[in-house]
């Protein structure tokens, strides 16, 4: 059997933004991988770079973004070295993405059927128009949309938010991609609809045996949907591991702080812990550990040197001078 291979691998990836003639690096030296068949959660708060990480894979970064170095390997090939034409073949076919806002992510002047059909037209050019329509209807049914023959000819504004998100998912899985990047796919949806959509995504993953990289700020969603987790803060990974590692044995002060500040659904919480201060903006990043300004356990070395992400147990890595591997008590 062997260890499952890595579908996607980031190696020392670096990117930043051009702000007022200066370039401010947000992500510097990001390294992690998504294993075949897994669901990897990328967790963080606003400004941590998780969305940029996903957009970097498909090379759809905004114009102000600057990529400095590193590699993003997809099945061993570096995506950053590919031409735009090559990327166009990969997008939608081998790697697909689902975005956060179902209301604005679909083109208002094209029908649902046209938008799904477009992916098929581009990546399966041999398919005839009839077969395309049939495939589209089947896809709509697979994602749980009732009356797919009718919905096929409707426009996005005639569908609810949950249905639009299902259409987005249908578009994404139409060509059976190897990996699905989902950027906050259910954040804008109601709770009961969120449960439906997450269940759908898991079901589809089972059927296609693909992998999912799920980006979210919601730790609950991560715990219930993912098998592995990467916690990001201000552009860097602070902790990574399986969900048991993260939720049962959280190590990094940020991870622990996050979990302690969540009110519980199943038990009564005392006063909630709050991490003091707020997330730094990309222009105001300090040297050394970026979490140090807010960390109750910081030491001198933390503000001088960047902590290295290293294993504290098999598969469980932490980037911290105080709690990480080789920390001196």
């Amino acid at each position, binding site marked *: 059997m062997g260890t499952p291979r890595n579908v996607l691998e980031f190696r020392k990836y670096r990117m930043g933004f051009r702000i007022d003639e200066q370039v401010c690096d947000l992500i510097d030296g990001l390294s992690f991988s998504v294993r075949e068949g897994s669901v990897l959660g990328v967790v963080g708060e606003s400004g941590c770079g998780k969305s940029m990480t996903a957009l970097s894979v*498909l090379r*759809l970064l905004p114009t102000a973004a600057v990529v400095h170095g590193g590699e993003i390997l997809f099945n061993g090939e570096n995506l950053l070295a590919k031409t*735009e*034409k090559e990327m*166009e*073949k*990969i*997008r*939608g*076919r081998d790697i*697909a*993405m689902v*975005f956060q*806002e179902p209301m*604005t*992510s*679909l*083109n*208002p*002047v*094209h029908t649902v059927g046209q938008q799904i059909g*477009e*992916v098929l037209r*581009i*990546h399966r050019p041999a398919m005839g128009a009839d077969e395309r329509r049939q495939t589209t209807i089947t896809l709509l049914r697979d994602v749980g949309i009732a009356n797919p023959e009718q919905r096929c000819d409707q*426009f996005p*504004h*005639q*569908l*609810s938010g949950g*249905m639009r998100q299902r259409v*987005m998912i249908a*578009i994404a899985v139409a060509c059976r991609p190897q990996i699905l990047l989902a950027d906050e796919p259910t954040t804008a949806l109601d709770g009961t609809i969120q449960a439906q959509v997450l269940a759908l995504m898991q079901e589809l993953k089972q059927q296609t045996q693909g992998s999912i990289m799920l980006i979210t700020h919601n730790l609950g969603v991560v715990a219930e949907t993912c098998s592995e987790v990467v916690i990001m803060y201000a552009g860097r990974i602070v902790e990574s591991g399986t969900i048991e590692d993260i939720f049962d044995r959280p190590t990094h002060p940020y991870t622990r702080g996050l979990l302690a500040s969540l009110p519980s659904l199943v038990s009564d919480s005392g006063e909630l812990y709050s991490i003091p201060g707020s997330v730094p903006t990309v222009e105001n990043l300090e040297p050394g550990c970026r979490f140090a300004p807010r960390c109750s356990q910081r030491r001198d070395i933390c503000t001088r040197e960047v902590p290295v992400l290293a294993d504290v147990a098999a598969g469980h890595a932490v980037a911290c001078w105080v709690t990480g591997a080789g920390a001196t008590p």
Partner: protein
Amino acid sequence: MFQYITLRVLKGALTFLAAITVTFLIVRLMPGDPTTAFISDSMTPKDVESLNALLGLDRSLLEQYLLFLRNLANFELGQSFFYKEAVSAIIAPKLGWTLLLIGTALFITLLIGIPLGVYTARHKGKWLDQTVSTLIVLGISIFIPLLAFALVWVFSLELGLTPVGGAVTPGIEGSERILSIMRHMILPTMTLVIVNLAQIVLFTRSSMLDVLKEDYIRTARAKGVNDRGVTWGHALRNAMIPTVTITGLMLGKMVAGAVLTETVFSWPGLGSMIYEAVQKQDFPLLQGAFIVLAFSVILMTLVTDLVVAWLDPRIKLHEGAAQ
């Protein structure tokens, strides 16, 4: 949809009614005797009488108005002072020339302007974008007669490429005639296009830039759609919606521009007719021209609205938008 069209037509009709009522009132409610503005020495007493009859000055304002409306319904626009013929007969052929000129100018403006707007949006900030933007702004800033005279001087007088004026060389028939008309159209059309190009280009450019920032464009790219597909297949149709609206408004401006352009080029359309009529104080002719122009502009605005509704499926009103 049918409902939408009916409503739009009704609104258009109401606007038209308002426009012609204002035309009607302007003259009759001016201080002083309206006739004194139009009585000239060359008019016989019989003319004065018929003038009074035309204006119905011997009757109440309301009666005059109703008479006016009734005449209008029969396409009866009165009689020209100067030409002593029915206004409608005078206007009819001239309307054709003006529509030909404006229609062609509009078509070419859109044909050049929209792609240019798209192109400058996609290459925003590069030198081509900046050059084009500067040049076309020069276009709107120029005083039309100045531009027209400059074109005539360069192309007709110095280079001898185009005729100096008029719509057609008299005396020719058949396909020769058509060619002649086309040659005569070159300069006046160019003038109108240069002056109006900026609006379309800049507006399309700005509309495209807005649309290109939208989330659904990012989705399209994530599907593997290439640049051309994104621009023409996804962005353009959305960007067109405000541009079509502004085209409707621009038509009104074009009509005003036509007056100056036609005059300089002696183009036998409504524009130059209006210019002459103002000089000769030919009131019925002016009134007739205003009414016809009002009707055309309102009609064109209506067509614009319908095109927008066709382009934008969100305007299929009152259908069950699922909640």
